């Protein structure tokens, strides 16, 4: 008997430690509180109406959605203002999430019929190729390389690579100032590769997520974080006292909606939705990205491939 109590006590201790650790970890992406701007999912519904009796001939993805009775969307969960999941409430918010819901509504699926899957950058193509998700909306840059494996609808947003530094950092005003500095980004990412190839950073550090880079930046262990400015702006909006964006964007990234290769019907449908829906786009932009200090207007979609 005494033995079991002792084991139970030990287990309880481990559970407490694990909780503390996981809380510590999941708490790091964002000290929420500032995401109030986008948590009114109810407000979104006013922007559009869920379509009824949608017909989309020749789209295997749409057929699969209809059969399933719900739509599975790949998104990100750690990019405030774009694709963010509140660790406590599990609520998702951001511009990309809004775009994802808008597309779902246009296909006849309301918010209850959406299943989100958080998919990190490196796994996006594979998730689409495997058919794990119906489409992907999450700071997904349109590139020729990716087009070999998948198709894109859009672009729906244009941004460029920028630098995030500590608010009191006066040394770094652009990518040319990175000599001898430590730059952080996510593992294998193109922005970091570009910094390495075209500029001359002291060292580069890579983690799985941007939020881990933000932690290291705040701790002073790295000097700058590089990726698309729209992503960086979200972190600034969360913590404007500690972080700022340095200099001007130095590349062009065009965000598209990732689709399974060959689904031209769905691609055309989404492109038409974007082209005809500038007011919805603007409303989503004003709600999610404008508060972070980003300016921008809706780009024209690419001609359907």
């Amino acid at each position: 008997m005494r033995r079991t109590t002792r084991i139970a006590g030990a287990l309880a201790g481990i559970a407490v430690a694990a909780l503390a650790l996981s809380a510590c970890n999941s708490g790091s992406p964002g000290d929420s509180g500032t995401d109030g701007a986008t948590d009114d999912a109810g407000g979104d519904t006013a922007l559009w109406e869920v379509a009824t009796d949608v017909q989309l001939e020749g789209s295997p993805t749409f057929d699969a959605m209809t059969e399933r009775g719900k739509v599975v969307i790949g998104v990100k969960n750690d990019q405030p203002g774009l694709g963010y999941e509140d660790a406590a409430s599990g609520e998702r918010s951001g511009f990309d999430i809004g775009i994802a819901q808008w597309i779902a509504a246009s296909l006849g699926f309301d918010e209850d019929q959406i299943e989100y899957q958080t998919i990190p950058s490196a796994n996006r193509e594979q998730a689409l190729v495997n058919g794990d998700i119906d489409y992907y909306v999450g700071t997904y840059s349109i590139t020729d390389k990716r087009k070999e494996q998948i198709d894109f609808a859009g672009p729906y947003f244009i941004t460029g690579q920028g630098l995030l530094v500590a608010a009191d950092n006066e040394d770094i005003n652009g990518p040319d100032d990175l000599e001898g500095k430590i730059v952080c980004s996510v593992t294998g990412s193109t922005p970091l590769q570009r910094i390495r190839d075209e500029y001359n950073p002291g060292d580069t550090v890579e983690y799985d997520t941007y939020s881990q880079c933000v932690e290291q930046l705040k701790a002073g262990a790295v000097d700058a974080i590089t990726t698309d400015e729209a992503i960086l702006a979200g972190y600034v909006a969360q913590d404007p006292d500690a972080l700022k964006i340095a200099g001007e964007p130095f590349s062009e990234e065009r965000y598209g909606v990732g689709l399974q290769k060959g689904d031209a019907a769905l691609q055309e449908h989404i492109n038409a939705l974007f082209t005809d829906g500038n007011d919805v786009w603007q409303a989503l932009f004003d709600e999610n990205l404008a508060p972070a200090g980003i300016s921008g207007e809706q780009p024209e979609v690419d001609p359907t491939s």
Partner: protein
Amino acid sequence: MGIITDNLDLWGEMIVGTLLLFFAGGTLALILGTIVGAMRVSPIPIARGVGAFYVNTVRNTPLTLVFFAFAFALPPLLGLRLTGAVSITLAICALGIYTATYVAETIRSGINTVPVGQAEAARAIGLTFGQVMRFVVLPQAFRSVIPPMMSVFIALLKNTTVAAGFSIANLGSVRAYLSERGENQFVAILWVMAIFVALVLLLSWAQQTFERRWKVAR
């Protein structure tokens, strides 16, 4: 095959990263583990206590958490800046300190295979504890634990991939890089698997060689 030949630079860098983590982490683990293993059988109670505490805490912690501590808790505490050299040192320490607990337990089990009479005889002729360990017990202990020790090192080899999430380029991060280069990830993972199988076969071969050469005649 194109996925290899088109990205030779990347694969080379990644394999070097994995081997560096394995050899440096393994060396650290072997040294530290031997010391801790000896501490756990030493006549000094404090040494035994410290050894037991270290093994029981670190061995019970998931490796990812050990890495987290080294990558995210230590730098601010010590005011470190994460240059490439610092990052890899931290990763090697994390791997080495984690694996040392397994090495220590393996060595302790090896020490227990040496008949206690041998240690007593060595003490009787006036050797100190350190000398008993060095000249009598450990040489025999090492030989008898080659198979389980190799298992520990095979596990270490595979554990190096955890470092991929903590800024160390190795075979575990190859997939992320290749996906960004537009390669098929599934193929990339199959290749990573093949390389690991080859490396483990190499370790198994080393194990057999050591076993043959160092067999204890009893």
